């Protein structure tokens, strides 16, 4: 006798199970299909192409009314199941009908997760789940603004679909990069770039606070920093929850989803469950491939045939036209794992393979996913790849081929890209010189002038030689920035400017970084190069700074910090001293010390106390002394003509003017100055990075001194007659050093490389260049002369740095 099967939910999993069942034995069951949506099964994952207009709803219907009729399926669409009486084995419909069953199958799917923030119940706040949601989004046009919360697969498909219709779309994502569960940072960066090119605004690390409404309808999304994003529709695509309500109500075993075994049976042997509503071996499922596997197993179980559901590796592709990305397997880093990374900046291609024990266990690809199936096969089959490791990353077509060209970044530069900034020589001019017979570095220097001045472009000039001459030219060994790159510091700096690179992931992608996220050596260097190259643009990444610069205090060996307020020119007041004494008392500062830079150091301050100390010091008018910075430190002075009988000029006043102009600047390394009123040199100006010695006729400016690991006397750069010129030359020299020196090189090391004569030419002889350097410095200072202590003590910047996440010290130990 035919048994009765009732299915709750007409979705992709139950649809496939039904197909399999009917194909195997059309007479085994008399089937009744309930569905809360007033329609049958359609291909839910194809809603995105419907939204973008690439498909119609009719094209994504998988089972038509005719199909159900032909196969004898009784459809109860638009009807919910109210209850199930397991003892009597009957399903009770919403209208009270009781339907007996022999087997029952749950396919109740999932519910979109709605963040319960204020305003979530306003009209115009929707999820992205069914045809109704899709139709609402399709009703938007060029005159509308839409905010999508969630930068995962679904949210981005919704955003791209609406953007294709001309809608002004903003994606708000809580994490640092898009699709963080499927993509690493580099691929997330490329994806973001592609979406921005489509006109979508992307805001990562953005925390939604509340939804604002007007007359019960959504008006804007407010972020926790106060920003308001106006919108006519707000789509929440932040995740799904298995829909377990009915299963739970009738007493089935439920965790995150409805518990099923390998045969898709629930805790009741006559009830099966498939799809997004189930939990199998701790996992829940949102992608279609495992759902189809489950459907196949469920159909066999219904026919009493043996079958076992096994979780497999899953791969992801984004259905957004023009954004080819693929991810599969596990791509977290680990001690026993290795990465192979391939980047082709010109084509926007990124590939990363994660290897463990000579097997590929994860893959992320962006831009060119043509070989994704081959890589996915290697992951699924756990193929040993030791024999093809060298060329693995190039895909199946290149097995046995040659490794990629390390000169790619320079090769990609256009001919008019400037290589030698000192002499204004382009790549094309260098190539012309080489083709004209200059086949060595010296010959290129002599004929084109490229690389003949400060020398920092020599690395790039050498690469152009290598590219132009091919095998005839032997590349010299060079010092690279770190093991993550084949480029030198100088190369990287010049390419950042030539290619207008403005973020660390951007630099790493475009300059072929060999590690996925850099290391503690290259990250701070890159951050400085970006900060220096692009003042006024938001390029500074605190996470790439050493702890002292991140929390604006010096870490001490016991994990406490030291606090040094700025005292311009070493001058203080009774008010400032009282404030310092008061905070020392209030915060029980164990050590108060006078520093060599003529200011006061409060040592042994707890990290949590820093913002409060800064607040109190700020009340007394003091700001950060940046005693922790690779940047401007102090201007030490003597008392000069104000009090000293030997003084020739107002050295204190000049010191204060210079420090007022220069504080807040970042540089490759720390930068210390002194101004002394006469050649007796009480302010010790002759061993500073820049020292000014006042004489009767004016000001001697000395540079490149050192009194640390190396001891060096500063050398005379120029003597100028007026204070104004002394300040101008100081700023110009600092800027020349900021723009040219390698990260962590003090000025004396940089001068040893470029030569004092070249520095003199730039700053002392060429007045136009001096003025331009000083102007660039002042422009940069507009953005960096911000007291970081005030921002943290008063505006709550980076508050997470100073407070523990949680405190369980009061919890009694067992």
């Amino acid at each position, binding site marked *: 006798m035919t048994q009765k099967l009732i299915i709750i939910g007409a979705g992709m999993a139950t649809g496939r199970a039904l197909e399999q069942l009917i194909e195997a034995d059309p007479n085994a069951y008399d089937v009744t299909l309930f569905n809360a949506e007033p329609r049958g099964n359609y291909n839910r994952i194809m809603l995105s192409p419907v939204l973008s207009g690439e498909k119609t709803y009719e094209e994504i219907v998988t089972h038509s009314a005719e199909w159900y009729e032909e196969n004898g399926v009784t459809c109860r669409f638009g009807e919910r199941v109210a209850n199930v009486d397991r003892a009597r084995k009957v399903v009770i419909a919403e209208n009270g009908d009781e339907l007996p069953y022999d087997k029952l199958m749950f396919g109740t799917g999932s519910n979109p997760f709605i963040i319960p923030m204020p305003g979530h119940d306003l009209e115009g706040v929707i999820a992205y789940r069914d045809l109704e949601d899709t139709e609402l989004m399709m009703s938007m046009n060029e005159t509308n603004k839409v905010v999508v919360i969630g930068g995962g697969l679904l949210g981005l498909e919704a955003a791209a679909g609406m953007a294709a219709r001309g809608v002004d779309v903003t994606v708000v994502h*809580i994490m640092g990069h898009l699709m963080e569960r499927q993509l690493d*940072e580099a691929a997330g960066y490329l994806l973001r770039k592609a979406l921005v090119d489509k006109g979508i605004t992307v805001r990562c690390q953005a925390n939604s606070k509340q939804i604002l409404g007007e007359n019960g309808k959504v008006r804007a999304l407010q972020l926790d920093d106060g920003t308001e994003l106006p919108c006519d529709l707000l789509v929440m695509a932040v995740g799904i929850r298995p829909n377990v309500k009915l299963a739970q109500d009738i007493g089935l075993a439920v965790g995150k989803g409805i518990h099923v075994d390998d045969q898709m049976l629930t805790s009741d042997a006559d009830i099966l469950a498939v799809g997004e509503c189930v939990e199998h071996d701790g996992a829940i499922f949102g992608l279609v491939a495992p759902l189809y596997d489950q459907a196949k197993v469920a159909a066999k179980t219904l026919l009493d045939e043996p079958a076992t559901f096994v979780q497999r590796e899953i791969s992801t592709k984004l259905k957004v036209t023009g954004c080819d990305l693929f991810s599969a397997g596990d791509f977290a880093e680990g001690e026993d794992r290795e990465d192979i990374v391939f980047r082709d900046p010109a084509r926007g291609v990124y590939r990363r393979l994660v290897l463990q024990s000579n097997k590929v266990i994860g893959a992320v690809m962006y831009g060119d996913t043509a070989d994704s199936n081959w890589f996915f096969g290697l992951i699924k089959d756990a193929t040993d790849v030791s024999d093809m490791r060298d060329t693995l990353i190039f895909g199946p077509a290149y097995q046995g081929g040659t490794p990629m060209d390390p000169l790619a970044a320079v090769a990609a530069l256009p001919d008019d890209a400037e290589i030698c900034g000192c002499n204004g020589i382009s790549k094309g001019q260098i190539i012309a010189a080489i083709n004209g017979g200059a086949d060595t570095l010296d010959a290129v220097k002599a004929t084109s002038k490229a690389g003949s001045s400060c020398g920092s472009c020599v690395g790039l000039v050498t690469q152009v030689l290598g590219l132009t001459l091919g095998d005839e030219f032997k590349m010299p060994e060079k010092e690279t920035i770190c093991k993550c790159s084949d480029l030198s510091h100088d190369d990287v700096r010049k390419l950042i400017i030539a290619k207008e690179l403005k973020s660390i992931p951007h630099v790493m992608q475009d300059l072929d970084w060999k*590690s996925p996220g850099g290391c503690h050596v290259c990250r701070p260097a890159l951050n400085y190069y970006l900060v220096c190259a692009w003042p006024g643009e938001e390029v500074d990444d605190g996470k790439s700074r050493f702890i002292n610069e991140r929390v604006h205090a010096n*870490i001490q060996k016991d*994990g406490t910090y030291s606090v040094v307020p700025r005292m311009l020119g070493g001058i203080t007041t009774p008010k400032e001293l009282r404030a310092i004494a008061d905070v020392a008392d209030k915060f029980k500062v164990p050590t108060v010390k006078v520093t060599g830079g003529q200011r006061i150091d409060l040592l042994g301050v707890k990290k949590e106390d820093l913002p409060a100390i800064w607040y109190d010091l700020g009340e007394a008018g003091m700001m950060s002394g940046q005693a922790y910075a690779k940047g401007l430190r102090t201007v030490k002075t003597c008392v000069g003509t104000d009090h000293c009988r030997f003084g020739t000029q107002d050295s204190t006043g000049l010191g204060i003017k210079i420090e007022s102009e220069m504080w807040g600047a970042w540089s490759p390394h720390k930068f210390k100055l002194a101004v002394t009123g006469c050649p007796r040199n009480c302010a010790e100006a002759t061993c500073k990075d820049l020292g000014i010695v006042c004489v009767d006729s004016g000001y001697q400016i000395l540079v490149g001194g050192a009194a640390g690991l190396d001891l060096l006397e500063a050398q005379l750069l120029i003597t100028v007659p007026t204070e104004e010129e002394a300040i101008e030359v100081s700023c110009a020299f600092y800027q020349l050093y900021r723009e040219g020196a390698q990260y962590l090189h003090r000025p004396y090391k940089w001068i040893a490389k470029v030569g004092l004569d070249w520095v003199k030419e730039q700053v002392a002889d060429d007045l136009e260049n001096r003025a331009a350097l000083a102007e660039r410095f002042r422009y940069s200072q507009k953005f960096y002369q911000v007291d970081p202590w005030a921002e943290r003590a008063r505006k709550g910047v980076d508050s997470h740095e100073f407070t*523990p996440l949680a405190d*369980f010290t009061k919890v*009694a130990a067992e």
Partner: protein
Amino acid sequence: MTDFIDIGSVTDIPVQGARIVRTAHGDIAVFHTASGHFYAVDEYLEGKAGPLSNGIQHGEKVTDPMRNWVFDLATGEAQGADEGCVGTYEMKVEDGRLLLSSAAIAGQVAAE
């Protein structure tokens, strides 16, 4: 079955940032890596490294701010020539909340 305690929201720690959880047995550093993973490890390796929450993160590793030792956040092992291992603790993310094993708060390092 491991018990977990809610220690905060995923948004409380910025990407590539870290914060500490204070316990009666010492501080635990909780890291949020660029790949979106969260890890809990001891803040200090007594006499050798720490406070690790102050280090620079790269990939699933952190560099100690004091001596530049590099630790794998998943295993707690020092990398390269340095030898040592910080305790690691089980944690997970559910509904945007960070959950740390209660054993961690009781001072028990995760089993190998």
